[in-house]
């Protein structure tokens, strides 16, 4: 008679093997559509980025040509031709435009400081009056903050506005609002949207990097900022790099 015990053991082994095979086939069948979808979507995004790269390249050529014509003396400008990536598209930084924007609020501040200095210089104000003035200033600042925070529908309103206008500034405001709300995923997303719409928005780079850092992706944040700094020599970017490095963010 056959050694059935031994044969039974071999049969169990065979069954386990066939079941594993069956299971893997089923898994492949289930996962195959997902795989195809992934490949398809990946292929599409690369295709889109290729197209945007091409169009951006054309824009780059135009934008880069301008500073060459305008300030032929600046040899350092040639270094700024480097492509900088925040999203899959290639952002081009218009340095002059950026500097102008940076100068603008500085002027404003200087005006107000001038006023304060004037008040101080007059020396006709008493210590109390100075305190009142300072208090007023503080109140003004508080009001500003309260204005932003008291509006519960701020983000919703901004979202609606953005839907209508597709304005990069609004996207940036949304990024800022989310960053203040400590919703760093959303702030990262919106700073990227803002940057996609306008590569020259420095704040979009900074908020994006800050959000990344807050999400624990310090290395990525530093990489983005240093490449941005290389191209723009932005002092804010440098300061932020230092902050991230010192882990104060």
């Amino acid at each position, binding site marked *: 008679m056959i050694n*059935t015990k031994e044969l039974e053991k071999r049969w169990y082994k065979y069954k386990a093997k066939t079941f594993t095979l069956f299971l893997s086939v089923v898994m492949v069948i289930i996962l195959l559509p997902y795989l195809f979808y992934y490949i398809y979507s990946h292929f599409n995004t690369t295709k889109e980025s290729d197209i945007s790269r091409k169009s951006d390249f054309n824009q780059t050529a135009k934008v880069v040509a301008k500073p060459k014509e305008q300030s032929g003396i600046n040899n350092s400008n040639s270094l700024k031709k480097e492509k900088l990536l925040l999203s899959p598209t290639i952002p081009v930084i218009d340095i002059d435009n950026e500097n102008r924007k940076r100068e603008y609020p500085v002027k404003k501040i200087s005006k107000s400081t001038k006023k304060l200095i004037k008040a101080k210089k007059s020396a006709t104000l008493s210590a109390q009056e100075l305190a009142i003035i300072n208090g007023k200033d503080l109140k003004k600042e508080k009001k500003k903050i309260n204005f932003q925070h008291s509006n519960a529908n701020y983000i919703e309103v901004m979202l609606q506005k953005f839907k209508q206008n597709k304005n990069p500034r609004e996207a940036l405001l949304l990024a800022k609002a989310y960053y203040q709300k400590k919703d760093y995923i959303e702030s990262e997303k919106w700073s990227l949207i803002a940057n996609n719409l306008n590569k020259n928005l420095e704040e979009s780079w900074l908020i994006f990097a800050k959000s990344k850092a807050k999400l624990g992706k310090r290395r990525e944040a530093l990489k983005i900022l240093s490449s941005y700094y290389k191209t723009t020599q932005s002092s804010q970017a440098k300061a932020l790099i230092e902050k991230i490095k010192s882990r104060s963010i």
Partner: protein
Amino acid sequence: MTSKYKEIKHIFIDTVESQNYVELDSMKHNYDLLAESLDKPLKMILLFGRPGTGKSMTLNKLYTNLKDKREIHYFDAPILSEKEFLKSIYEAMSGQHIPQNMRVNFDGLLKYCQKMRGKREVIFLLDECQLYSEALMEKIRLLSDTRVVKFVITLHKTENEDIIAKEHFKTRIWEVIELKNVSEEDLAVFIQKKLMQKGFVEVANSISKRDIKFIHSHTKGNFRETNKFLYTIFNIYEYYDLYEPKKIDPNRFSKKILEMAAIKLGYIHD
């Protein structure tokens, strides 16, 4: 303590006894063709096919059916010595016993046959002729030329030699009947008839089409392989019946046992 499965497994022991012959449509066709060929003025008839396709069984069945009607002799085992072969032919034809120290002269045998032309027709059934030497085969051919002796020979060859062998016989204008492995349907009939002949109707009915398909997929419809497979199956059944009867359902053919037998015979691997 005995099990009914012991008896069942013995049904599938590979034999060529005519009582175990199972008539299938394909087999019946081949048998009729062979019987018809015997009435034609052909000198030799070749039953050709791969091992286990039922050549010996057909030959045995032919002998059993015709032994009372015609002068027919069946050599089930090949006689490899030429001396012994000629002696056996002469003894069968003359009915005389040749002593051990004497031999039959081939020319004398030829003359003996020629003298009987038109008076007698003797049929010899030779199995496993691939074992005969070419010289002996040539002598068989010369004997058949006398038209007194008719030979039905079976031959099996390996895959590469199939065509060569068939061509060899075709050029000599012999009747060639090729036996092939049976279809799934014929195999089902073969198994069920075998079981029913011995009264195991319930067991025969418990074998489903799916089981037959499984058996056919591994045996390719070869009778010898099928017998071996079923013998192993019922051998395992016997063990369970005697020692672990809870593991078998008498009304249902066990797929587990089928697969175990397939593993045992190396059809599937664990």
